[in-house]
């Protein structure tokens, strides 16, 4: 009987592990967004590189998320890498052909024991298809890094890129 209880307990643990998706991963706070709408991304960084403190956080802005503005963060330097978009995006009458491709928060200090959030906003192009949209992100520490760049979508992926589910504009309740 004890063995049964143990089995059931482990099964229940697994269930909980599944039901609470990966607090241990770097994730986005809002997991769903409508195509063609603005989105405030809150990147949650739950731990350092092993035991080391994080000093730099980099986020890649893939094609299709435009008019991007990062939020400055006290204690961190903020820089962006800009470049040309593959196509132009309409923004209140003007066509944007270039913008932020990467955001870098650097020279900060986020110990492994602490938690922090990094914020940026932008707009999802109306030409995007519904599905998972990934923002690959890399945490850099003194002697290593945590690269959340796996966009395979594998359930068992060890370090998945932070992602948001894109849904058609109508179903998002505008």
């Amino acid at each position, binding site marked *: *009987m004890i*063995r*049964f209880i*143990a*089995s*059931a307990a*482990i*099964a229940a*643990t*697994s*269930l*909980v*592990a*599944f039901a*609470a998706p*990966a*607090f*241990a*991963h770097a994730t986005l706070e809002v997991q769903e967004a409508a195509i063609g709408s603005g989105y405030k991304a809150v990147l949650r960084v739950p*731990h350092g590189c*092993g*035991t080391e403190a994080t000093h730099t956080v*980099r986020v*890649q802005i893939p094609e299709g998320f435009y008019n991007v503005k990062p939020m400055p963060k006290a204690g961190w330097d903020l820089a962006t890498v800009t470049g040309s978009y593959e196509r132009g995006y309409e923004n209140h009458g003007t066509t944007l052909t270039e913008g932020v491709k*990467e955001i870098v928060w650097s020279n900060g200090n986020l110990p*492994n024991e602490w938690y922090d959030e990094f914020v940026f906003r932008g707009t999802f192009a109306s030409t995007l298809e519904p599905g998972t949209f990934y923002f*690959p992100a*890399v945490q850099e520490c003194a002697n290593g890094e945590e*690269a959340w*760049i*796996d966009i*395979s979508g594998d*359930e*068992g992926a*060890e*370090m998945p890129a932070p992602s948001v589910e894109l849904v058609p504009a109508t179903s998002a309740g505008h």
Partner: protein
Amino acid sequence: MRLLAPMQLLAALLMFALVPVEVAWAHAQLLSTSPAENAIVEAAPEQVELRFNEPVSPLTITLIGPEGASLDATGTATGGVTSVVRMPADLARGTHVLSWRVVSADGHPIGGSLVFSIGEITGSAAVEPTSDRAVAASLWAAKTLLFTALFAGVGAAGFSALAPLPPLARTAALWLSVAGAVLGPVSLGLQGLDALGLPLTAFADVRAWSTGFSTSYGATTIAAVLAFAAALASLLMPRSGWSNSLGILAAAIAALSLALSGHASAAAPQWLTRPAVFLHIAGVLFWVGALLPLWLLLRGRTDSADKTLASFSRFIPYAVAPLVLSGLTLAAIQMGWPGTHWATPYGFILGAKLSLLALLFGLAIWNRRWLTAPALAGDTLARSRLRRSIGWEMAIIVVILGLVAGWRFTPPPRALADAPAELVAEPIMAHLMDGETMAMVMVTPGRVGPVVLETTISDFEGFPIDAQNVRLTLANPDRGIEPITREASLIDEVWRIEDMTIPVTGNWQVSIEVRISRFEMVRLRGELIIP
């Protein structure tokens, strides 16, 4: 007590449904070990320490010794930031693997393997998985019965699409399907026990089930249970277009289930082997499924019996032709050109199977060419001969299924062909690719023990790809060994790993993570067969 077994089974099944989602949520991280990874220590350590970045509880700790024997050490492991695993007093000299799986406070299990050696690095090529004899015998019996139930039960359900089953055959097929639906999960648990080297008494052990499930046999079991359910539904319905379609669907799922696992399906090229296994099994299903109904029908002389016999006789060439073609293809892939490697247990089983098949085909041809027509014309002697001959066919088929179930215990010569015993030092290669990237992995020497892994990465035109770093992971879920991961270093355009020890023979899953740029990573997967 009577309630206990089903409840344990239920718990195990619950696990079985959940296991795939509990893989490697990166949180707790292994920081260091004592002895260190790949260390050679003079004296047997009293304990092994695994230090993590946060407290963990051990789930499964297995120690695999130089002889290949698995020892469950979960009970002696402590939890905490440092997990201490007490070692048995009589540790043998040679290379050991400590395969661990722990769960951190937030409920995310992680696993890995620590390789260390006492006195000297060993890795004898003769290492055989030591499985409990009772477990091996039960597994073999369960699989033989499962195959029999699958071919006779689901096969009959499929055959009923062609002709109505006699009542006794329908009842037999029903019970075979019920038995198969139970035997499927039972054989999965036994597969897990066999992989971990646990005794029969550990049947309710969660680890056996999760290990069984993590092998490709897990998918086979699920599909087989679905096939039995579809066959049951089709047999319980009154005969109609619906029940016929369900019967055919059941047979298709059954053929698919066996194409999902096994040596033959694992062989390259998979685009050829998997469809070949599917066709092979589908042909067997039609043939075997028809035998019991025919045997029962031939007891008397009715119009429906004659009709069934005539339609069987008309359709059987369409089942046998793909059966023979796919069988020859698979045998050629598995065995290669004739040579000394044919004298292996795998070769002997194939030889025995082929001899029995020759006998079976002899009977079948005799039946079809010389007995069917007179039997249909009303010749009583021909009818009773045909019936006896079908009885023999059924007996031979059960023996063949028993032989096929024995294949699980022998690796095919294909696996040994790359490095026959006298040439064990030859490197073993694996070719991995996805839509855009290819990797060639070379293991030198191609045997267990300390090895050097060399990986070259290129695009589809063969031009080398500049990577920032390359990580290679080896895992052996068949033996319950958790992943061993190493960073490669770039030397003369080849990514080299020198501190890897492959502890046991068998099929190792290899996965390579290629970091193309800061934000881009490619993962390639494949298999290495270490003889």
